[in-house]
Structure formats: C-alpha cells, structure tokens
C-alpha cells in the first residue's frame, strides 16, 4: 500500500466536505462540513509526515486542530446569536450583517 491511498482518501473527504458546504443551508451542518474538510487536510498532513520521516507534518496537523477548535467556538457562538435574533439557523435567512 502506498501513501497515495491515504492522500486519495483525504482528497475524497475534502471534496465531500466542500460539496456539503455548497449544498447545505443549515449553518451548523455547513460548519460540520468545514470540520470534515479540515480533518481531511489533517489526514494528508499525517501521511506526509510519515512519508518524509519527520514530525513537522504532525505539528502542522496539531496546529490545524487548535485553530479548528477556536474556530468552532467562535462560529457556534455566532450561530447561537443569529438563532436568538432570527429564530432560524438557515444561512439563507442571514442576509445582513446587521441584526
């Protein structure tokens, strides 16, 4: 089995996540699809790390995880706030930055 298999899987998951971001209208599901894309990127980074025999790829994946956690916290807070003011989590309804 070559490293390409892992990269292909990562590419596939990334594509699925991107399609989800384009198609879904529930803001939370869109967010989950973004998470799926980030995870696919992480898988590629871990595979690269093993391919090249050093740990820098894993460090990158670690930072991606930290940034994703911060992003989720702020994003979900924004969704909760939007839901409070508009009573809907649909991205179609949020057409204005102003509340």
């Amino acid at each position: 089995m070559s490293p390409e298999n892992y990269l292909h899987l990562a590419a596939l998951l990334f594509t699925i996540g991107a399609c989800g971001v384009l198609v879904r209208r529930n803001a939370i599901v869109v967010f989950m699809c973004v998470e799926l894309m980030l995870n696919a990127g992480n898988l590629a980074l871990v595979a690269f790390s093993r391919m090249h025999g050093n740990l820098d790829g894993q460090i990158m994946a670690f930072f991606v995880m930290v940034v994703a956690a911060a992003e989720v916290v702020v994003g979900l807070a924004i969704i909760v706030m939007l839901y409070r003011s508009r009573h809907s989590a649909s991205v179609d309804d949020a057409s204005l930055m102003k509340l």
Partner: protein
Amino acid sequence: MSTLTALAAETTTSGGEAAQFWILAPIAVAGGLGTVLMRRAVHSALCLAGTMIILALFYLANGAYFLGVVQIVVYTGAVMMLFLFVLMLVGVSAADSLKETLKGQRLLAAACGLGLGILLIAGIGQASVGSFTGLAEANANGNVQGLASLLFTRYVVAFEVTGVLLTIAAVGATLLTHRERIERNKSQREQAEERVRSGEQLPPLPAPGVYARHNAVDIPGLLPDGRPSDLSVNPTLRERGQVREVHEQALADLAAIERRTAEYQGRAVTVTPPRRAGDAAPADTTTGAGDERAHDAERAERDNGRDNGPDAAGEEARR
C-alpha cells in the same frame, strides 16, 4: 512503545495495515457522505463523529499516536459534543427542507465537487509520492517527546500565538453569547396582571384524552360540542404530526349520548352534530337503543384495533 514505533517505522506497509485501510476507508467515506446527505442535523453530527473516530485510527496507523488520541479526545469528545449542544439549543427537530432555493444549486455544486475531486486526484497523481520513509528515527524517543521538542523549539512562536488565539476565541465566544439585561425583572404580580390583560388562556390547559376510552397524551380531548380541542395536545406532538385523531365513531358516540341524555331529560336537542360524524349518529333512539349502543361500541372497538397498526410508530414515540 518500542514495538509501536517499530510498527510505524516500517517503510513498507504491512498487509494488516492495507486490510485496515480498505475496511475503514469506505466507512469513513460513507460517514462523510452521511454528513452531507442526512436531512436531520443530529444524524449529520453522528456521521461526522464516526468519520472522525476512523480518522483517529488512521493517525494511529501512521505513527501519529499523540494526534490520534487528541483527535478522539478533542474532536469527537469536545468539538462534536459542542456541536450537539448547539443543535439542542437551536432545535433538534428542525430538518432542512428539500426545496432548492437557488435554481440548479445542487447540480452546480455536484459539478464543482466533481471538478475539485478530479483536480485533487490528478494533482496527487502528478506528484512523485514514492513510498513511506517511516517515522522510526523521528519517533525514536517516543512520539510525544518528539512533538514536544519540535513544538517548544522551532515552532515556539506559533505555539504562543495559538495560545493567544485560544484566549481570544474564549473571550469572543463569551462576549458574543452574553446578553446584558437592560430592563428590570418583572415581579410576579406584574406578570400575572400582564397575562390577564393579554387575554390568553388563564386556567390550566384542557387535559388530553377521551375519558372512558383513551387517556393517552396524543389524543385530543373533546370539547362539549364534540370537536377535538387543539389546546389539549402538546404543540410539539402536533408539529411532528404524531397526534392521533379521535375516531369518527367516538365523536358519533358522544353525540348520540348527548342526544339521548337531552331527550331523557326532556330538553330541546341542542347538540350540534360533530364535525366529521357523517351519518354514523343514530337518528332514532326510542327503539332498540341498547342494541344500537352495543353495536356502536363493538364497531368502535374494531376500528380502534385496526387503527393500532399504522399508529405503532406514534405509540413507540410516546414510550
């Protein structure tokens, strides 16, 4: 640890790893597809959690032991549960409508996805990927130690900046979701007066269930004129479409009883016929009333028995 490092150190992958990959990769892809295609957001979240756990297994297989554990603890443990919390806050029953708001959006999105996938796969094909070097050297002192020594030397600035980022995120989330109370709290008296003035339902809501026949919460109670009362059933059940209709026969029986009572007491018959009674209500009650009643009850019983079939789902939900 030494056996684990030796395992991941191999430059050529073992047959076991290939088997693991070919079993788990389809499940991961199915989970990803489920995330996108499931209508209910909770199902999407669970599919995504499954995919993340499988990715954690892949990290472990690739010698990233620390990341594998962090993936399970932080991603599936914390982040996905945060998602579920917010889903519960926002309303778990809200399913996406399948109606397209933009014309041809799905088709275009699928085309874009296909294009992106082809581009990525072609890019990987173009690169000279070669084979695994293996992490034997890098993981020699243990994976966590190796990561730590890199993190606190070469990447120490990035590490500090991430710490600042996390602090800002925490403060930002608190700030965004915090709501300052501007007005004074209403006293109980003011609340009561407001409620009376607004003219909404003051006494307790009517109880569900048709007495002497059903007392289940998904059956609306009957008003004096025989109409089912909407107020007596929980709005959530009504929204989910899990309200069981009161059977026509029950309505007809009720109307018949009212009529008989009225006639017995010599009052004028003022009972309005129930909405959907049809012709089931017996018109004449002087002769063979008992027979008629027994017959009606029997028929209602039979109909109820027949109704139980399709309503099994509702009953299960109630339990």
